[in-house]
């Protein structure tokens, strides 16, 4: 290796580590300050805690109604994602195998709808289902799940549609001859073959729904049905600048998704990469 090359590669590593520091220091700050008291946080946010105090966590878990909130978020995210995946795969399958005029028009409308900002739909949405039909007070969680399926289908169908074209029709014909009906052919033969894109779509939907704030903040008006982001907002309003409570609360909110990322980082990164190519 020449001297020039060594300098160049040192330079690359230097940039990479400066970038790394920029990307992770907020998380490190969160972790070390979760165990400190207000006084210590304000005078010295960068030091390790003088003693590791877990008391704030139990305090926050009680004050945030953490278990209920976590359960709500989990329920809404899992059910919505599951239904989006099934319904979108079925719709995309039908559109690819039966390219009728109606199906083509529907597909075009779906793709076009992706440029509509949520802000242009939220007011009529709240007006129709809140002021008119009163469903927001009656069944907030099922309604929110319905909304997620509706908003999530366009991108998911689009991605399944792109992938479906690569599945050979001969396999299905063989299944048909062996006596499968359309539903059996789809669930037993086609759906398992969609696994790579299904993983991608599921990951993208989980990240979106788990973190979404504006829609649930408009639909969920009662503390018993709050999701994590909505609860975090309320908590922040109540304990403004009370960092010894706010920081553990933020950490508890982000921890579930960070743990998920640690377990499945490879498939998450690959999933996002696959999703972008389609």
């Amino acid at each position, binding site marked *: 290796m020449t001297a020039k090359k060594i300098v160049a590669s040192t330079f690359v590593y230097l940039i*990479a580590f400066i970038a790394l520091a920029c990307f992770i220091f907020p998380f490190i700050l969160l972790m070390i300050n979760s165990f400190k008291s207000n006084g210590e946080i304000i005078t*010295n946010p960068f030091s390790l805690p003088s003693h590791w105090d877990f008391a704030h966590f139990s305090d926050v878990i009680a004050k945030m109604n953490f278990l209920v909130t976590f359960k709500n978020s989990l329920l809404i995210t899992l059910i919505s994602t599951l239904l989006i995946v099934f319904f979108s795969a079925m719709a995309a399958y039908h559109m690819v195998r039966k390219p009728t005029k109606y199906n083509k028009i529907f597909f075009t409308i779906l793709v076009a709808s992706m440029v509509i*900002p949520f802000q242009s739909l939220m007011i009529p949405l709240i007006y129709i289902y809140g002021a008119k039909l009163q469903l927001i007070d009656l069944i907030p969680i099922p309604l929110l799940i319905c909304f997620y399926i509706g908003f999530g289908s366009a991108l998911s169908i689009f991605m399944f549609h792109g992938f479906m074209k690569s599945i050979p029709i001969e396999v299905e014909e063989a299944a048909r001859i062996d006596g499968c009906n359309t539903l059996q052919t789809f669930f037993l033969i086609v759906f398992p073959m969609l696994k790579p894109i299904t993983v991608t779509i599921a990951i993208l939907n989980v990240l979106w729904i788990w973190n979404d704030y504006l829609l649930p903040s408009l639909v969920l008006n009662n503390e018993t049905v709050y999701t994590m982001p909505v609860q975090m907002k309320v908590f922040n309003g109540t304990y403004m600048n009370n960092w010894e409570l706010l920081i553990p609360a933020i950490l508890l909110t982000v921890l579930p998704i960070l743990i998920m990322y640690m377990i499945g980082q490879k498939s998450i990164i690959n999933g996002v990469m696959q999703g972008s190519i389609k």
Partner: protein
Amino acid sequence: MLAKKVDEVSYHTEISQKVIRRKRNLTSLGNSMLFLGPSTIFFAITVVIPFIYGIYLTLNKMDSPIDAMVFSGMLNYVNAFKDAEFWSSLWLTIKFVVATVFFVNLVGFGLAYLVTSGMKIQNSLRTAYFTPNLIGGLVLGYIWQFVFVQSLPALGEKLGISWLKLGWLGDPHMAFWALVIVTIWQTSGYMMIIFIAGLISIPKDLIEAAKIDGAGAFRRLINITLPLMVPSFVVTIFLSLKNAFMVYDLNFSLTKGGPFNSTLMVSMHVVNKAFVEANYGTGQAEAIILFLIVAIVTGIQVYFSKKMEVEA
């Protein structure tokens, strides 16, 4: 006699064929409903009906959401055009869009270039750079509030750096750049992943050939890599444009539009108009204007960048 028999047989087969055909049509209709039905229904009740109803809403006037609607023609649009705060928030959003689209793509591409250059730890670096994308804008805003309000001033105090000591979020100009910085931090990792996918697909022999012809690293980047990366840029610019126009969560949690409404973006203005002032008609008219702007800008972007695509 025989002729009659033949007639009868053909008559029967005709009937049975009709029955089969009708049965087939029925099952095909049943299948269509089964496979397309759920998505169609949910898409209709959350996107199609609210979109059409939203346009109807802008043509009516009501004093509060529970009052009856009165047809008012273009009044809501006239109000929207007269709403100075709407236009100032829109102008601010456009500045935000320009700043974030530029920097997010620059940083995202830089990171992708860095982690495809053959470092041993590049996979771990990708994982780390992507982390902020896992967390929603609202919570990120609270995390960075701690950074801007507590940590940076404390650091400035310690090191004696005066510009760090200032509270960024209390100054209108700095607060805007705080939003830009956090957006870059949040989304450039996502764009990096898209760029990595593009960079990997560039044929190696093309780069080798240029190397042999004597092109330096910079020339190779400008004349070979970048033109071949146009399809990736189409996607990343589209995504960053749309995200920036619609920014709400981060805006709400980091600055709340303050100080003195100096960082109030258009989404937040629309939310306030509709749900704080309870003016659904004008709020929806402004949301429709926002939709038209986003549709036109992204349409133009995709059209022109598709034109720039080249074959390897």
